[in-house]
């Protein structure tokens, strides 16, 4: 009998009645794998999440604020009168994870490395455009300016000049003073420096491990290099409160850094685990095997997470993500081999390329879109409408700009005026694409279809879901007459969004053939002055103009939320942080 009981006990232990993770350990289960841990290469949230905890920048956001900053690796700064020189005084006594001390040389190295490599798929472009004058790396810039087969002498000269620009853009004045020289005033430069791409890397350690020497000698080998093949891709020596223990596939393990210059964090060990299947993540949360899990959408949150014992949902109606998304109307779709325009004529079987150049068509579509339904049905009531293509928490957002709400009568009226009344008689047919898996965009497309087709039986809209590769191909080639896309903030400055959306050379403005002289003028002015009040006024004007000519319709943002076990404290929400909050600021009771 005794044997039986012991056996049962042993079996029970073996089967492992799990106990929650220890108090000094934080386990986060999410989806979305780290792309790379090289700050100069990473440009996605999953990578940024790890980087913001193991590396640091000169200044950083103060907890959850987008507008208040606190000194991190720099203790003070000043900007020259003409706005082209930024001087930072660095913090003394900071150590890297390797034990090396941080000096100006490391800052200089980190930024120059970013400018030298500037891979095509990295964030280097918005540093380079301010510091060097080109947004692409040296080789790509040469190709743009000199063509595919340039005269070797000209190429040499060009590269030499480019190097000079890099060299002169960052300078050290002694061990603890660093100066940045911009090519033109850029009010968003300070905000840009908070992005993980400008993290300070341990230059001595990096060079020892085969990274760029930091000098002109081998810089050409590193131009545009894919840094995912380098040492910094999966090894790190930063100044952050945590050091990287290991990154293998789906798991990132980090531990608290003993030599950290700041306050010692309560959490000593961190595991970030990628678990693709949401159902599995939720079970782990219930069991206490995970302290935080990422939940895909509001529907799951409301139906499966709310009310779970031991689980806390963090939310606040004032929170808003640093994202802006819109339904775009393409005024200049490409005509060659374009399957999405149908017949290409105003004959009821397609759309002519100038379809959306008629403001009545754009307004009609805008009035056919049900903003409230998105919030009610998709976000279950937790969402916020956007008045312009800018996140509500950003400088310059004007909540008083009117929004196009569903009004089928007005839509009909505008359709009847379109093309001098001809559209109403002939009808049209077009295709709206969304990328598969994105239910929000799919729903928006289907909603538009349902509402517009109801107005006039001659209006036909096909909604098609395509794989991401096809989707980006179509957008890139400007084939889509209507598409739904968004933009996440790179840095906390409104220009990051406004230029992209409203300027004729901005990424989206260009893709939809938007060319409004007034908008261009306003955007350019706003990005050249530093006075926040004046800029805010300009942005408000931009938003109003956007309402008038409606080149696109911003759609509501979902209210963000976070889910953790209820013994986690210190959580806050910063939309610019890839992980919303930093590990060093939380603890477990």
């Amino acid at each position, binding site marked *: 009998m005794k044997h039986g009981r012991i056996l049962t006990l042993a079996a029970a232990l*073996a*089967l*492992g009645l*799990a106990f929650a*993770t220890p108090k000094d*350990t934080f*386990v986060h289960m999410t989806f979305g*794998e*780290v*792309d790379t841990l090289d700050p100069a290469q990473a*440009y*996605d949230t999953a990578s940024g999440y790890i980087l913001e905890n193991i590396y640091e920048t000169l200044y950083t956001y103060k907890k959850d604020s987008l507008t208040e900053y606190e000194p991190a690796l720099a203790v003070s700064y000043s900007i020259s009168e003409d706005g082209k020189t930024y001087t930072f005084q660095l913090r003394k006594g900071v150590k890297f994870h390797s034990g090396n001390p941080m000096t100006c040389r490391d800052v200089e190295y980190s930024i120059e490395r970013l400018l030298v490599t500037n*891979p*095509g*798929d990295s*964030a280097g*472009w918005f540093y380079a455009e301010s510091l060097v004058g080109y947004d*692409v790396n040296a080789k*790509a810039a040469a*190709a743009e300016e000199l063509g595919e087969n340039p005269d070797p002498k000209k190429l040499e000269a060009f590269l030499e000049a480019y190097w000079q620009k890099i060299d002169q853009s960052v300078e050290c004045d002694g061990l603890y003073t660093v100066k940045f020289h911009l090519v033109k005033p850029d009010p968003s430069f300070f905000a840009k420096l908070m992005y993980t791409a400008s993290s300070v890397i341990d230059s001595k350690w990096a060079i020892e491990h085969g990274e760029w020497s930091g000098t002109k000698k081998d810089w050409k080998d590193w131009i*545009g290099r*894919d840094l*995912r*093949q380098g040492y910094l*891709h*999966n090894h790190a020596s930063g100044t952050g409160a945590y050091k990287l*223990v*290991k990154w*293998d*596939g*789906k798991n990132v*393990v980090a*531990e608290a850094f003993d030599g950290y210059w700041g306050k010692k964090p309560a959490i000593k060990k961190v*595991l970030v*685990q*990628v*678990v*693709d*299947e949401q*159902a*599995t993540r*939720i*079970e*782990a949360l*219930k*069991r206490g*095997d*995970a302290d935080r899990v990422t939940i895909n959408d509001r529907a799951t949150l409301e139906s499966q997470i709310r009310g779970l014992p031991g689980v806390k949902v963090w939310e606040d109606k004032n929170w808003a993500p640093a994202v802006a998304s819109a339904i775009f109307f393409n005024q200049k779709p490409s005509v060659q081999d374009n399957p999405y325009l149908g017949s290409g004529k105003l004959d009821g079987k397609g759309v002519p390329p100038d379809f959306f150049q008629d403001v009545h068509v754009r307004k009609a579509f805008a009035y056919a879109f049900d903003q409230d339904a998105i919030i009610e049905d998709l976000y279950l009531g937790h969402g916020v409408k956007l008045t312009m293509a800018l996140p509500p928490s950003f400088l310059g957002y004007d909540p008083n700009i009117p929004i196009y709400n569903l009004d089928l009568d007005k839509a009909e009226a505008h359709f009847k005026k379109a093309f001098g009344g001809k559209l109403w008689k002939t009808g049209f047919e077009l295709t709206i694409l969304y990328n598969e898996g994105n239910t929000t965009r799919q729903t928006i497309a289907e909603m538009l279809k349902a509402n517009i087709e109801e107005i006039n039986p001659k209006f036909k809209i096909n909604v098609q879901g395509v*794989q991401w*590769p*096809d989707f*980006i*191909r179509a*957008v*890139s*080639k400007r084939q889509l007459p209507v598409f739904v*896309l968004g*933009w*996440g903030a790179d840095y906390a400055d409104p220009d990051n969004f406004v230029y992209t959306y409203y300027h004729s050379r901005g*990424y989206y403005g260009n893709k939809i053939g938007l060319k409004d002289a007034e908008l261009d003028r306003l955007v350019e002015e706003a990005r050249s002055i530093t006075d926040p009040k004046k800029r805010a006024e300009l942005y408000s004007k931009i938003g109003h103009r956007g309402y008038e000519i409606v080149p696109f319709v911003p759609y509501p943002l979902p209210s963000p939320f976070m889910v953790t076990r209820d013994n986690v404290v210190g959580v806050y929400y910063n939309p610019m942080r890839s992980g919303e909050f930093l590990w060093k600021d939380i603890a477990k009771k």
Partner: protein
Amino acid sequence: MLTYAIRRLLQLPIVLFVVSVVIVGLLQFLPPTARAAAYVKSEQQLAHIDEIIKQYNLDAPFYVQYWTWLKNALKGNLGFSRVDKKPVLESIATRLPVSAELVLYAFLPTLLFSVWLGTLAAIYRDRFLDQLIRVLAVVFWSLPTFVLGIALVAVVYGYLKLFGIGRLPPDLIIQLAQQANAGEFRYYTGLLTIDGLLNGRLDVTLAALKHLVLPTITLILVLGAQIVRVMRSSMLDELGKDYVRTARAKGLPEKVVYYKHARRNALIPVITLAGLMFAFMLNGVVITETIFNLPGLGQWAAAAAVQLDQPSILGFALFTALIVALANIAVDMLYALVDPRIRYE
């Protein structure tokens, strides 16, 4: 027979060549912008797609791309896995042990379990037991694997609080990562159950086993269902043969007839199946690894296919083709051993 084996082995490179050409060829149907998809993960990166295309040489013609790939492959460089952010060979090396461990613990039980049930079904043909077994086999086979998997996760792991997901519990993951860095724990094989023993860490082995229970059960149920049916029909074939009638006529007890004679011969098609089971298991493994969060080859394949990660897809296809081809050869050898009627020149 040896010459036959050698000849078959020599034909392997041809198979691999064809496989690689087909896959690289298929991917050429996509224009560079779409193939750049493997490198674009966000709208921001979309903005710079032309640079991305230039950077990765995505607009070179087919034979150039294939030749570059081939040159590198022969040097041992199979390219860089975008999905895993490491060289393809390294991906295979790290992921193979994970899938191998899962398959290892599922293989034998599946085989034994299905042979036993299949035999029973044949012996009690058309009676209740047979019908029950057949219906259950079909139900488990037709159940989409992920339904079974998710149900197991919810009920056994979530509700009953038994076993675990992933390969190890979080605290052991952290501990082993720190210890591996410090050289205190060495991954000799990559199979945690064995490495645990080799490092003298029984707790690691036990934890790994605990975490293998659910995925193994899922695989056994889904795969076993298919093999039960094959075993049954092959057993029935055998039982209809003349020598069985003779044995019965000789007065041998049923048990001897079944187990000593019929079953041994019925095992021939099962050998085929067992040999191909590694390939079969791929389907189940892809989904099982996703649900239970095991970083194996199946999970890699699914991600690579959806993201159009060319080097990964190629590496994976070649590797599997190699294994299946080898398994085929081994199976044919086994046949010759078991069935004296088969002879190869």
